[in-house]
C-alpha cells in the first residue's frame, strides 16, 4: 500500500518537472530517463521498491544515484571540455592515479585521510593542467594530447601502488563512497556539491560565456579579445579535478585501489553522458545539469539491465545503440535525409556534401570572397 503511494508521488513530482522543462533542450534527456523509469515501473517488479533501514534509504533508484556518482562527476568536467570543442580521454586514468595516491598515502605512508584526499586531488588537478598545457599551450589536438595520459596514466597509477591492490579500512575514506547523509548516499551530496562548484565557476563568472563562445566560433572569439588559451587550460584542469574526486569515490566503493580497473572505459561513459545531456560534440552551448542527468540515464540503463538479469557484461550493447541513436539525432545529415525520405528513395544514399554550396571551400578569404 505504502509502495504505490510513494510511486505515485514520485511520478507526480517527475511529471511536473518534465512539464516545467518543456521547450528546453534538457526536456529530451529527462524524458528519456523518464521512459526508462516508466519501463521499470511496469516491467521490473521491485525496481521502485524503497525501504528505510537504519535511517538509510535503500532501493534500485538509490543504487542508481550511488553507482552513477562516478560518471556524473566525470561528466561535469567532461561537459566543459567538450563545450570548448575538445575531449578528455584521460579521465579514467586520472581516476586510477587519484585512487592510487590516496590509498598509498593512507596505508603505506600512514597519513591521515584528510591529507591523503587533499594530495590526491592536487595531483589530479596537476594531471588536468598537464592536458591543458598540451592543448592550450602547444596547440596539440585534444584527442591526441589526452591520449598520452590515457596510456601512461594507468602505468603511473600502478607504479604508485607498486602493482598491488591496496586495501584500506579508514572510516573517512570508506565514508566517501559508502556513507549516508540524511538517509541518502553521501556520493549524491558530493555530486551536488561539485555541481554547485561547477555552476559558480561557469555561470557566476564570465567563464561559461567564454567557453560557449570559444566552442561555437573560435576565430570570432579571438577577434573579440577572449583569451581562448586561458579558457581551454582551465577546463582541462577542472576536468582533472572531477576525475580525481571520481577516483576517490571509486576506490572508496570497493575499499581498495585497483589501478588496473578503476575507471576503465568510464571516459567513454562520461562522453556519452554529456552528449545525451544535450551538449553537442562540436562544442558551444553546454548543459551542466543535462550532463549529470545524462550520467543518471546511463546508470539507470545499466541498473535496469542488471535488474532484468542481463549480465553486466552484455550491457555495453544497448549503450552502443544509445550512442548511435543520439549521434544520429544530433546529425544534421541524418535529419535532412529523414525529411527527404518522403521523396524518391533512390537519392537517399547519395552523400549530401557534394550538393550544398558551403561545403566546397573554394571560396577565398578576405577581400576575394564572393557569394
Amino acid at each position, binding site marked *: 500500500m505504502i509502495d504505490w503511494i510513494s510511486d505515485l508521488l514520485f511520478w507526480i513530482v517527475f511529471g511536473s518537472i518534465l512539464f516545467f522543462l518543456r521547450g528546453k533542450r534538457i526536456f529530451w534527456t529527462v524524458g528519456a530517463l523518464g521512459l526508462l523509469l516508466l519501463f521499470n515501473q511496469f516491467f521490473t517488479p521491485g525496481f521502485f521498491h524503497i525501504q528505510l533501514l537504519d535511517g538509510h534509504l535503500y532501493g534500485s533508484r538509490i543504487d542508481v544515484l550511488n553507482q552513477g556518482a562516478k560518471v556524473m562527476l566525470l561528466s561535469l568536467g567532461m561537459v566543459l571540455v567538450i563545450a570548448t570543442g575538445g575531449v578528455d580521454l584521460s579521465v579514467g586514468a586520472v581516476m586510477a592515479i587519484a585512487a592510487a595516491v590516496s590509498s598509498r598515502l593512507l596505508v603505506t605512508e600512514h597519513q591521515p585521510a584528510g591529507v591523503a584526499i587533499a594530495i590526491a586531488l592536487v595531483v589530479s588537478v596537476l594531471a588536468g593542467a598537464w592536458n591543458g598545457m598540451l592543448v592550450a599551450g602547444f596547440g596539440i589536438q585534444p584527442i591526441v594530447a589526452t591520449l598520452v595520459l590515457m596510456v601512461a596514466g594507468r602505468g603511473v597509477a600502478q607504479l604508485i601502488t607498486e602493482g598491488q591492490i591496496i586495501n584500506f579500512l579508514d572510516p573517512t575514506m570508506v565514508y566517501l563512497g559508502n556513507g549516508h547523509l540524511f538517509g541518502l548516499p553521501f556520493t549524491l551530496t558530493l555530486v551536488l556539491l561539485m555541481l554547485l562548484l561547477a555552476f559558480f565557476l561557469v555561470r557566476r*563568472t564570465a567563464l561559461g*560565456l567564454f567557453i*560557449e563562445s570559444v566552442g561555437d566560433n573560435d576565430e*570570432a572569439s*579571438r577577434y573579440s579579445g577572449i583569451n581562448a588559451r586561458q579558457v581551454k587550460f582551465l577546463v582541462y584542469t577542472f576536468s582533472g579535478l572531477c576525475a580525481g574526486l571520481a577516483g576517490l569515490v571509486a576506490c572508496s566503493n570497493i575499499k581498495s585501489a585497483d589501478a588496473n580497473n578503476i575507471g576503465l572505459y568510464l571516459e567513454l561513459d562520461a562522453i556519452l553522458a554529456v552528449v545525451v545531456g544535450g551538449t553537442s560534440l562540436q562544442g558551444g552551448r553546454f548543459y551542466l545539469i543535462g550532463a549529470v542527468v545524462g550520467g543518471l540515464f546511463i546508470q539507470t540503463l545499466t541498473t535496469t539491465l542488471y535488474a532484468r538479469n542481463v549480465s553486466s557484461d552484455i550491457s555495453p550493447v544497448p549503450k552502443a545503440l544509445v550512442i548511435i541513436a543520439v549521434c544520429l539525432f544530433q546529425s544534421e545529415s541524418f535529419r535532412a535525409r529523414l525529411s527527404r525520405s518522403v521523396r524518391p528513395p533512390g537519392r537517399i544514399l547519395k552523400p549530401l556534401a557534394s550538393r550544398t*554550396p558551403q561545403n566546397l571551400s573554394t571560396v577565398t578569404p578576405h*577581400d576575394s*570572397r564572393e557569394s
Partner: protein
Amino acid sequence: MATPLLEIIGLTKGFPGVKALDAVDFALQPGEIHALMGENGAGKSTLIKVLTGVFPRDLGESRLEGQLIAPRSPGEAESLGISTVYQEVNLIPHLSVAENICLGRQPTCFGIIRWGAIARRARAALARLDLSLDVSRQLSSYSIAIQQLVAIARALDISAKLLILDEPTSSLDRMEVEELFKKLRKLRDGGLGIIFITHFLDQVYEISDSITVLRNGCRVGCFATKDLPRINLVSHMIGKAVQQVEALEQKRASTASIRSEAPILEARGLGRKGFLQPLDLDVRSGEVVGLAGLLGSGRTETARLLFGVDRPDQGTIRIGYQAVRFNSPRAAIRCGIALTPEDRKVAGIIPNLTVRENIVLALQASRGSWRRLPVAEQEKLADRFIHALDIKTPNREQVIRNLSGGNQQKVLLARWLATEPRLFVLDEPTRGIDVGAKAEVEKLIQSLRQEGLGVLFISSELEEVVRQSQRVVVLRDRRKVDELTEGEISAEAIMHSIATHNLERPAA
C-alpha cells in the same frame, strides 16, 4: 567567325533569397586568354561552378566546341576537357608532385601502380609548361607559385581544351607572376582557351585578350582588352558610368573640422611580404578616413595588420603617441582599437549565442574571465544598443543567427561600441544589409566622429566612402596608390586613382 571553344547562353542560377546568375552569356575562342571580372557578389565563381557541374543550373545551356554539355560534377567536366585550378591550389600537400599530377588516374598493371610511369608522365606534363622539377619531392616543399603550376600541369594532363584559373596570382610575387604569364602565353599560342578570374587590374591588362565583366549576376559586357580604357573598366565594375558620377553623388556629410590634430593612429611603412606592400596611414581624432579600392586591393589586409590578427614584418604603428606591437587582437583591443571584420559569419558573430551575449562579449573579454558583468547591467547594455541602433529582434535573448544580416551587423557594431574604443575600424560594415540599416550605420559613424573617435572606413561602395570620409586612401593590387584630401574627394577621383594612378611599378 570560328566556332567558339566555349559558349554559354542565358545561364541562370538562383539560391534561396538571391539570384546569383541572371541570363549570363559568355563566349571564349580557342587560343584566347579571357579575363572574368566583377566585384563582390558579381557571380564569377558561381558561373564557374555551374559550368563545371558543382551546382546544377536553373536555365541556359553551354556548348564546348559546338557540342552541348551539362557536366554534373567537376570530374565529369574534367573528362569533357574543362579543368579548374582554384586559388588554394586544391592538391594534396603531403603527396609528391608526381602523385598529385596523376592522382586518381595512375597507370596500373593488374591494379598495381607503376611508379616509374607516374614519374615519367608527371615530368612530361610539367614539360608542357617548360617546368622541370624533382617530381618525387613532397608538394608542400615547393612554393605556392610552383604548386600552382603543378595544379595547372595536372589540369592539362587530364584534359587539354579549356583551363579555368580562379585568382591564380593572389599569393604570388612579381617574378612568379611573370613566370606564370610566360607559360600561359605559351599555352594560349598552342590553342588552349583560358578563363582567368582576377581582380588585379594591372595583370588583366598585361595578360588577357578579352575581358568580360559581371555585376550582380548579370553580364555587363564583353570587351577586347586593347580597346577598353582602364577608367571604363573600373566604372563597369563599380556600376557607375563615368559621366553619371556627378549626378549620382549625394550630399556629403558635414566636413566641418571637428577633428583635432591629435593623432590616434600613425602607421609608417606598414607591410607584410606577399600580403601588403608597405604603406603609411594616419587617422586623427574626430576624423573618418576611407579606405577605397577594388576587391582584393589590400583593404582587409590593412585592417588585419592594424588589429593584430596578422603580424606585419615591417613598419611601425603608433597609437596615441605610443609605439605598439600587437601579437593578437587582445593587445589591440587594450589599446582602444575595435574591428568589425569583413566576414561576420566567420570572424564576427557567435551564431548560437543570444543577442545580449554577442553584444557584451568584447566588453566582458576586456574585463577578464572572472569579473562578470552583472546580468542586470548586461541587459541594460543590450537594451540600450538595441534601441540606439534599432536592432530588430523580438527580444534580447533571441539567438543571433535567426536575425537578418543587417541586424547581425548592428549587433556586431554594438559589441564594439560597448568597449568605447578610440579607433574604430569598420570593414565593409554595410555589406549585405538593407538600405534603412545602411543609413543608420552611416549616421552612427558621424556621431562617432562627433565624439572624437577616429574611424577607418573600408567599403567597396564608392558613394559611401565619398559621403563619410574626410580623407580617402586608395589601394590597388595590395599597395597604396593615392591619398585624397578634403577638396579632392569624389567618386570619379577615386575611380581615376584606382584605374590609373601610379601605373609605373616601383622596384619590387
